[in-house]
């Protein structure tokens, strides 16, 4: 079983394995196998297309957490030039689960902040699986205030299972750190674009997710609690995560149809990890056009519109 493929992708994985085998044989064979390879390749593509045209919410959640999925630094590297990472909250520590700094997009300077997961085991631990502690959120807030001071737009990349639930995190005020960011971002006087690139896990995601535009990649998810958490509370069993993912409506397209997300960016065939460059290119276009559009508004209008946007979230009746 190829670990690069998820459960539901196994038929594709088998085809791809066959293609690799033929290529290997073809190299030192007199028989020309190119035709056969091309035939299998197109079969594999159409199989991928058909599987991916009908993904369940749970399958999309698995793609959002795919171990090869591009993370914040992968996008920063592809989208921006001159990235200078800035460290520390000036109070306690530098949290590696959140990265941030100065960078240029098409020459224009901005501040970028994002949650960062690790690729190998050692880095995963160092980055705490992308679960920030209060010092991470306070570093983010420090960088946001710097953006405001120097009139630089803010771009945030959201990719976290959630804020870290630990003893130290509670002692240092995890709740307050998240709440403070929501409070400050609601009136931060610069254009803000938030992008969910993988997992948008609850308050830990929202803490860098308040802004003027919310973009989600096609196979990213955003939810009030993880499907597993929801399942273990409401279904009394974490095995029902699949049902919970469906019921909560965690996918980009569903949230877009509910009016909670402004824009959904299509991913390359098979997901962003199959072609990170192509994904980055489409993300760059989206960032440039959104920032251009936001820059045209006066600050007062921008902040009034941002307030209205959040005030309008909610579904209720009135008698």
């Amino acid at each position, binding site marked *: 079983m190829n670990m690069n493929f998820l459960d539901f992708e196994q038929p594709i994985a088998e085809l791809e394995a066959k293609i690799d085998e033929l290529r290997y044989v073809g190299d030192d064979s007199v028989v020309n196998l190119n035709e056969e390879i091309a035939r299998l390749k197109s079969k594999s593509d159409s199989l991928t297309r058909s599987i991916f045209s009908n993904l369940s919410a749970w399958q999309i959640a698995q793609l959002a957490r795919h171990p090869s999925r591009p993370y914040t630094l992968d996008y920063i590297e592809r989208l921006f030039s001159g990235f200078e990472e800035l460290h520390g909250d000036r109070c306690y520590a530098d949290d590696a689960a959140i990265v941030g700094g100065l960078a240029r997009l098409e020459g224009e300077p901005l501040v970028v902040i994002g949650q960062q997961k690790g690729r190998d085991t050692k880095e995963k631990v160092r980055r705490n699986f992308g679960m920030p502690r209060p010092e991470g959120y306070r570093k983010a807030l420090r960088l946001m205030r710097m953006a405001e001071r120097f009139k630089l737009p803010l771009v945030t990349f959201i990719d976290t299972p959630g804020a870290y639930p630990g003893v130290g995190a509670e002692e240092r*005020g995890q709740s307050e750190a998240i709440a403070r960011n929501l409070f400050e971002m609601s009136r931060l006087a610069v254009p803000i674009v938030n992008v969910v690139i993988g997992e948008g896990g609850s308050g830990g995601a929202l803490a860098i997710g308040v802004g003027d535009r919310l973009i989600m990649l096609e196979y990213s998810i955003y939810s009030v609690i993880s499907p597993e958490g929801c399942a273990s509370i409401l279904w009394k069993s974490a095995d029902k995560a699949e049902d919970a993912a469906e019921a*909560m409506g965690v996918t980009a397209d569903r949230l877009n149809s509910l009016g909670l997300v402004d824009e959904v960016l299509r991913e390359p065939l098979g997901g962003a990890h199959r072609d990170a460059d192509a994904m980055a290119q489409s993300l760059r276009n989206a960032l440039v056009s959104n920032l251009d559009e936001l820059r045209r508004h006066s600050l007062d209008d921008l902040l009034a519109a941002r307030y209205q946007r959040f005030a309008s979230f909610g579904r*209720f009746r009135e008698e």
Partner: protein
Amino acid sequence: MNWFDKLMPSKIKTQRRSRSVPEGLWTKCEACGSVLYRNEVERNVYVCPKCDHHMRIGARTRLKTFLDPGDQTEIGAGLLPEDPLRFKDSKRYRDRLTQAQRATDETDALVAISGRMLGMPVVACAFEFSFMGGSMGSVVGERFARAAKVSLSSRIPLICFSASGGARMQEGLFSLMQMSKTSAALAQLAEAGVPFVSVMTDPTTGGVSASLAMLGDINVAEPQALIGFAGPRVIQQTVGETLPEGFQRSEFLLEHGALDMIVDRRQMRERLASVLAMLTRQAQPQS
């Protein structure tokens, strides 16, 4: 669950009415076990006269004992919850709502009233914990935002008593967005220099603690209240060790710098009135 319960369709099933304070002439303190005369407990604003345990109380009782009688206007009373996701787990969200509404006589988990406290005009809200764990969905968020708006336009202080497990899962991302909605409303109050006092009561966790509850100009808690971002069980699972004594209790939070003060419920009115009078540069209120 017995065979009869299993047989009944979920919509006609109602759980036993759960009350934070049991009915009857006598009541028992769940902390020290003393048998107490109910009238005496009521007179003592539901604080055990023997051990000072602060019992959980409903939103109406809370506001009734906190605000001056008469001259009260309820805010957002006509708001009713919807089921935007048509959410269903073992039970439909609609049925859970109906059940909670019957059990509590409330339409949702927040009550907001504009009135007076020791003569001082205030807007006060309180979470109803018996209504789906005081969870914050669209109606809670909207009522809170409207309360903040009344407070802003009349420039009178806002006070919120929180008692909540967090965001309401059944409304999905709409619930999460109530965190930013309520925080944005508080940012407007702060900009206008209108004070907000957050009183955290047992328990205040999750999305409510990580938004409006921690954003008070003054953060207050009742003694011994459980306050935190993650629940103790989740933390225990994550760290795999037993949690320190008194972890996530008010006294622990005060020690770690998250609270301004812990106030006994019996002194709540006087203490808050005194603080608010100073913040708004008024004469010391007469109690």
